[in-house]
């Protein structure tokens, strides 16, 4: 019983803190945010490891498939996010000139 309670608390607290953090991400970074979330959803891999080593014969195949799929998400998600974020560049050095708004 305390397990389910702890899990529900984690669920809610993570959702609240996550909500605050995610709402502050500018639209400039929404695509990398999403691909990063893809990587994060690969967290299923930890569940897959636990189930794989305890599962009986008939179940380990499914857990193995889950391991592979979850790791595609982890590796694919993080690497594609890295690639994207490396492309974002600010104006080099001549930032001083016309920073006044047009109005």
């Amino acid at each position: 019983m305390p397990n389910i309670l702890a899990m529900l608390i984690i669920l809610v607290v993570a959702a609240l803190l996550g909500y605050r953090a995610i709402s502050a991400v500018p639209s400039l970074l929404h695509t990398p945010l999403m691909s990063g979330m893809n990587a994060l959803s690969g967290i299923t891999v930890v569940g897959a490891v636990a189930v794989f080593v305890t599962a009986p014969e008939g179940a380990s195949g499914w857990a193995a498939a889950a391991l592979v799929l979850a790791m595609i998400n982890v590796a694919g998600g993080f690497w594609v996010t890295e690639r994207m974020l490396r492309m974002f560049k600010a104006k080099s050095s001549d930032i001083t000139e016309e920073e006044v708004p047009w109005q």
Partner: protein
Amino acid sequence: MAVSLVAAVLIVGLFIVGIRLMQSPTSALWGNRLGSTAMLLALIWAFVSTGWADIGFVLVYIGIGTAIGLLLAQSVKMIHMPQTVALLNGLGGAASALVVWAAVIGYAGEDAALIFWGTSGLAVGVGALTFSGSVVAVLKLQGVAFRKPVQFPGYGHIFRATLAAAAVITVLNAAMLGSMYGVLVPLLVLLCLLGGFLMTLRIGGADMPIVISLLNSFSGIAAAVAGLAVENFVLVGAGSLVGVAGLVLTRIMCQAMNRSLLAVLTGFTPGAHTQEQKAEQEIATEPKSAALSEADLPGILREAKRVIIVPGYGMAVSHAQDAVRQLTNAFEKNGAEVKFAMHPVAGRMPGHMYVLLAEVGIDYDKLMDLKPINPQFAHADVALIVGACDVVNPAANAAEDTPISGMPILNAGEAKNVVVCNLDEKPGYSGVDNTLYDQDHVITVWGDASETVPRLTEMLAST
């Protein structure tokens, strides 16, 4: 339990810090790296807590998945990011469903609790729905199948009945404590696969950003519920984060299109019959007189000191990003200041357009969101529209009962002159004629943007 709780709090905390670092493009890279480090810690913790059992096999499967993931991530083009994210959404959902399915087989016969059977049914169901929905989304985005929204009579009833049946079976399976899991869970999977298929089948291209965000959220919810089922704290916390992220983005996308999520999912289009008529009336009231022509273009472009470029998905379709960057350079060489007006739903997923422009080396501080850029159109000499239609259509504000009515638009029409580099004068995705095209200060240059935009660059250069 205490140790695994502490480990979970630590790892999920690192994920949250990683997301917080994504608030600025300068720190975002480190946020991503912190996230991957936390993921590595989570994996090591999983090995430790299972006593490094079967570690050889586990590492082989992890290696296979990692290799496939890296290959995919390294080879994908930026224009294909939406389908890549959609694919990963689907794989995440499938992975969660498979883990729980394996746990179900493992637990069967044992004295598992009601909570296990309830959450496992939910996790398998949401995972399956995410998977099939994402597969359809990938096929649509890739242009392989279902490019047009598919509709058939009774669609709504079938969709609702499918979801209702899936819910009943989930409850039934839990109530029977899985005593008939061998029949009920596969049936649930089939129903949810059908549900996800139907859900996405009806979605049109312009609604894709919303659906991808929603499926992103589902993949997180599936992981979180799977965590509840297999009692894994890290899985619950991280899944919850992903679920919330997807929901936040879904809401932002819905607001940017002034559509309710329900309307998107049910394919409801307000006043689809009256829109043509309305648009015709609009045009009739605005007589064309002394309109500018392409001959005026070189002068207008050369004299422009303040330029706002409005990029749309059409620019990406004709691979004109590089041409747009060259034009930007030509403008700047000519002493003009160039900014980009970014509509939240430009592209096929949240933030897609930013990535496409960053890819060709356009600085992100030139890219401005709808709210800050809109007042600046009135001060701009030229608004240059490249492959965008609905997001600059004044009909969104003027006409009622069209699919885009009430959608916040970029007020490109307020610029002194407007140059439109779109493929043709056909309406955008919404099917509503663009009333901007007929205004006097607007010059339209129809054709493939990868050909028309370089022509503008030449006009600028040939002084």
